[in-house]
């Protein structure tokens, strides 16, 4: 194996990265490489071309189909390397949402680990988290790239979410949890499941929940949002985009919780008119990111999906690790 210090890559229009030496496309939006891999089923990582051939984990394949993908998906199991002409590819469970995978690409030029979106310790509604011992080129997201972000354990936050919900219900209010439909909604449901209270979920999230249960993840007692019954001792789970929609306006007595890594910021309380902020994220935090990078001991780190790569770079440099930001479109909030 050669000792290149830089990775040969190309950024793709829209989103995604191409590794030309391996003939691999990672989270690209069109049919632009010989082998295309999808890390997970969030929109900013999915192909816009709905009819091409891609590789993905089994759960991602199912979620993609629910979300309208009609192309051909070759399902790859985690930790099972697949050989191609010019590379070997392995999916590693990424702990972000169900099906989420980190993609390891090995060529003569070295090992590349592309994280997609990831979280360690993993979200409890995923296949867990695992990664290779080491890598040469580490392409990592850094959605939360500052030392103000350090996540508390899931169980601790779940317990607080349960007390928030029971207290609201006890005082005659409908608890509303704001979280996006794929991943965060199911995490919330899993955390609240021990309460045994019926939960209603926004229509777009409803179908996705089935995929979770088929994968053996308990989401408790849940049903589709029903305007007629939502205020009858139910918990409502819906994306924050519905804050101004009739769905929430119709509920006069409610207590609203915002569940997101961005809930770290007090300003979100006022911006969204929120009763409670739960900083529960499905992205890796700043400290875990540094720790994992050090463990992987890469030749170079490429930072994507970040509002500010400079601080991470500063800390990596202190550890003697070279890095550079990777300008990519399609960077989105949580």
């Amino acid at each position, binding site marked *: 194996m050669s000792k290149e210090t830089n990775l040969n890559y190309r950024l793709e229009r829209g989103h995604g990265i191409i590794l030309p030496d391996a003939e691999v496309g990672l989270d690209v939006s069109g049919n632009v490489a010989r082998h295309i891999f999808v890390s997970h089923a969030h929109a900013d990582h999915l192909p816009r071309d709905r009819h091409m051939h891609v590789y993905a984990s089994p759960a991602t394949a199912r979620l993609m189909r629910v979300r309208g993908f009609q192309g051909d998906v070759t399902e790859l199991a985690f930790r099972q390397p697949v050989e191609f002409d010019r590379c070997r590819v392995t999916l590693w469970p990424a702990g972000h949402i169900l099906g989420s995978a980190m993609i390891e690409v090995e060529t003569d030029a070295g090992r590349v680990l592309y994280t997609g979106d990831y979280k360690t310790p993993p979200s409890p509604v995923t296949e867990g988290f695992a990664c290779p011992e080491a890598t040469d080129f580490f392409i990592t997201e850094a959605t939360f790239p500052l*030392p*103000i*972000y*350090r996540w508390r354990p899931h169980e601790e936050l779940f317990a607080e979410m349960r007390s928030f919900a029971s207290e609201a219900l006890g005082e005659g209010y409908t608890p509303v949890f704001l979280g996006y439909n794929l991943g965060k909604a199911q995490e919330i449901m899993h955390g609240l499941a021990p309460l045994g209270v019926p939960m209603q979920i926004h229509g777009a999230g409803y179908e996705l929940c089935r995929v979770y249960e088929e994968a053996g993840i308990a989401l408790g007692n849940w049903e589709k949002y029903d305007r007629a019954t939502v205020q009858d001792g139910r918990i409502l789970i819906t994306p924050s985009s519905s804050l101004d929609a009739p769905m929430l306006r119709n509920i006069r007595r409610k207590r609203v919780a915002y569940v997101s890594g961005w809930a770290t910021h007090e300003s979100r309380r006022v911006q969204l008119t929120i009763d409670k902020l739960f900083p529960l994220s499905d992205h890796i935090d700043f400290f875990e990111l540094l720790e994992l990078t050090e463990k992987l001991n890469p030749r170079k780190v490429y930072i994507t999906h970040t509002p*500010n790569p*400079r601080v991470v770079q*500063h800390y990596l440099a202190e550890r003697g690790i070279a890095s550079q930001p990777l300008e990519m479109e399609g960077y989105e909030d949580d």
Partner: protein
Amino acid sequence: MKMTDAAFQSSYGVSFRRFCEVMQRIAETRGNNRKISLFADYLRSLPDEADVALAVQFAGEGAFSSVSGKRASVGHRTVAVCAAGFCDIDYELVFRACRTATGSASEAIEKLMENLPAAIAKRKPALLSLTETEALFQRLEKERSREGKQALLTEAWTQMTPAEIKFFIRVMGQGSLRIGFESRSITAALAAAFDHDPEDVRYARMITGSLGRTAVLCRRNELSSARFRLFQPIAFMLASPVESRAVEDLTAYLAEEKFDGMRCQLHAEGGKVALFSRDLNEITESFPEVVADFSAKMMPAAVLDGELCVFRDDTIQPFQELQKRMGVKKPGAGVLKKHPVVFIAYDLLFVEGQPLFGEPLKQRREQLETLCEAHGIRRSIQFEIGEEGDVERFFDRALAHGNEGLMLKHPESTYEYGQRRKSWLKVKKPGGTLDTVIMYAHAGSGKRGGTYSDFTLGVSVRDDERYEEEFIPIGKAYGGYTDEELKKLNQAMKPLIADRFGPTYSLKPGIVVELEFDGIQVNRRTKAGYTLRFPRFRAIRWDLSPADAGTLRDVERLAEEKLTADRTPQKGHRSFR
């Protein structure tokens, strides 16, 4: 040392930590009534009235009570740099990115204190009591140097949890705690906690001018003692700049000329007279001729609100003359003769055992006229505004008298002590004067060689989120001072010198100069974004500290004011009688 549970419980009860936890809960609670009841429960649980007073003051006023005039005077940048050092992070690169992401320095600091190993290792939360926390603020106020203030901050934070540190910084800033819980809710909580009528609590607050003092009266069940007492000053009613308020009908107001003097509250009964300044300090000794004048009148118990002015040759003399009297404890016969001061009344707050605050202005005015008539007291002349155009005419006339402008007062308004609302409006000469701080001194040349005679002056951006400095330059001025004043200035500079660049000294903030200028121009090439036209010294304000300096916001407001038309004096008109 490990505390026993009982010991922990009792120290926790009066701790700053518990106060912060209550504040955080209030922040996380929606609905005013729920917030109020949370705070009321907390106040009721405090064992000591001193703790109740501090909790209420921290929540509503800050580290110091508003009437004390004190401030911890720690700038944003001092706090931020100190926090970055405490957490062992790079200030420019890391701290600023965190603050930008959070949108609040104190909140970013809270998170960093919680997350960073260096900060965690240093912090040994000690469960400081409210009184211990107040003592820290007192020490910060007394400490002059930035290094000293940073050492004190570090000492404080070492003993605190991250949430305590966040609220410590916010309380220290004398501003809002940003928990959606303002003054009105705090008095409501006091009322709920100790079972009083909220109106009575608000009244006591106005009389005492202090939330802490009000809290004590609530707890002792002595609200009724919050009565006005002769020879105890009460907070002054303040005026808003007319351009800052939306006023529908100016003709509903009464106008008076605005004297360019010193606001004063005069208490008198028989031969006894006392004078109080706007910051409620007693200034009786400084103006013996006023005292002599009023004690000879043998008035009934009365409190007058008015202005001290130097009055000579039937003319109100410029403010600079009055300045020669301000702060002089026992003026000599020469000064008294050269700069004789009179008191011109314009409001009556109390007469013959009867408080008048609650009465409308027109009734107070009637009684004022009667009293003044009977005892020969100078009072401002009020005139009605027939049409909007009168305001401008009266204003020009006022300037011709050497007065500052106009006061517009609503005849139906009560005396709103300590408040700045639209019942009183001030119309001032636009672009006139600004209190600034000397930032740099430049060596003079020619006649002024050998002295530092040119000065770069700055305005405060201490509370301005857009800047990190405490002061930024607004203009360069020379002249307008006497040789003697310049000599004194050069002496006073010496201990403030921070750095030297060739013929220029950089000075620590310490000397306040009242600048006079012709106008303000937008100038985007300067840090402030404005330059002053023809700035010159109007007075060196030895009586003011840098904390009193004007702010960039003031400059921005002044810049928006329009220039007025030409001024033509009008003979035979008087501004008081």
